[in-house]
């Protein structure tokens, strides 16, 4: 393919991708020069997008995105229990007032006893002060300070696994010994247990770990 033809082909592919199957694209970009043309425009496009992103991402956008994140991951609890307690208190007070009125009415309208002493009864007050029925909202007392965090900085995976396994009393098995020499930087929360540690480890691309029958298995 002539150089000019290659450029035309790449432009055609960029302008009309619907005319190309994945296989046709792969075949076209097998040619190093065509691949260079495509990569050059793609990288430049990345620069354009990054510049746009920088100018668009202001405090307003960050606030909006945090709000979206907060709503999804920290849903506000409905204060149902406070509402319920208030309703109960209101009903109780209402009943007490009605009872008092009923008793008062009875005393006024009912005949006096022989001794001439009117029957009276003290107005019963609610057993509980409604104010004491107020609830306190649960406050989260997560305290990172109490978490036992052990930080590894550029440590060999084998050394990390040895320490973790020893802590939890687990065995270790390497199905791929090459991962032993990987160097990682991570923080290990001892209170998260072996499963928590495994989960953290699997976040790294080059590591795949499992936990089975008290054995940490590295693949």
């Amino acid at each position: 393919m002539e150089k000019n033809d290659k450029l035309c082909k790449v432009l055609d592919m960029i302008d009309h991708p619907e005319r190309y199957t994945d296989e046709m694209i792969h075949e076209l970009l097998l040619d190093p020069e065509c691949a260079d043309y495509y990569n050059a425009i793609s990288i430049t496009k990345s620069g354009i997008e990054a510049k746009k992103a920088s100018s668009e991402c202001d405090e307003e956008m960050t606030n909006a995105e945090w709000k979206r994140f907060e709503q999804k991951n920290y849903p506000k609890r409905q204060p149902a229990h406070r509402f319920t307690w208030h309703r109960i208190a209101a009903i109780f007070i209402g009943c007490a007032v009605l009872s008092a009125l009923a008793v008062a009415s009875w005393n006024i309208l009912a005949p006096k006893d022989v001794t001439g002493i009117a029957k009276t009864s003290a107005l019963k007050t609610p057993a509980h002060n409604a104010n004491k029925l107020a609830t306190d909202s649960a406050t989260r007392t997560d305290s990172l300070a109490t978490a036992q965090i052990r930080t590894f900085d550029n440590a060999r995976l084998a050394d990390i696994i040895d320490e973790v396994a020893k802590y939890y009393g687990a065995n270790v098995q390497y199905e791929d010994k090459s991962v032993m020499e990987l160097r990682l930087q991570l923080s290990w929360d001892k209170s998260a247990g072996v499963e928590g540690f495994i989960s953290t480890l699997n976040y790294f691309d080059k590591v795949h770990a499992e936990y089975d029958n008290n054995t940490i298995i590295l693949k």
Partner: protein
Amino acid sequence: MIDKSIIERLFRCNYSKMYTLARAILHDDEESKDVVQDVFARLIDLNMIPDKEEAFLLTCVRNKCFDILAHKQTREKVEKLIILENGYEIYTCFDERPNFEELSQFVDNSLTDPTKTIFRLRFAENMKYNEISARMKLSEKTVYKHLKIALSKLKLHFNAKEN
């Protein structure tokens, strides 16, 4: 679980850089925002505070973006001019990630008008040839010619950088 105030601090301090990196890789506003949201959601589950916060978070963004791209068809990527697998290495080491400002400035510094304007209209504004032709009062053939010039110069520039 990590305290919410810590997550919020990390979010506000690093959001802009994370979103910019995602946008540079995915070339899509909504997908990029979702990537950043997913990274922080995952951080809550991981229950760990990274020591080098910015580096860790940017790595997470990069990896998440690559996961997304792995599930896209090639044609889908070409439609958005997303870099293909053989070009991923430019993002693998975030410490040496390309200077996006420089990439964008190359267009301004190395291309002259009307090539520069036509290039921006096509690839920054995503305008079609007939729209550019009407805006610039040039034939579509001339628009195409200028895009070829721009692409040739870009290729020369990046090849020279690699050498």
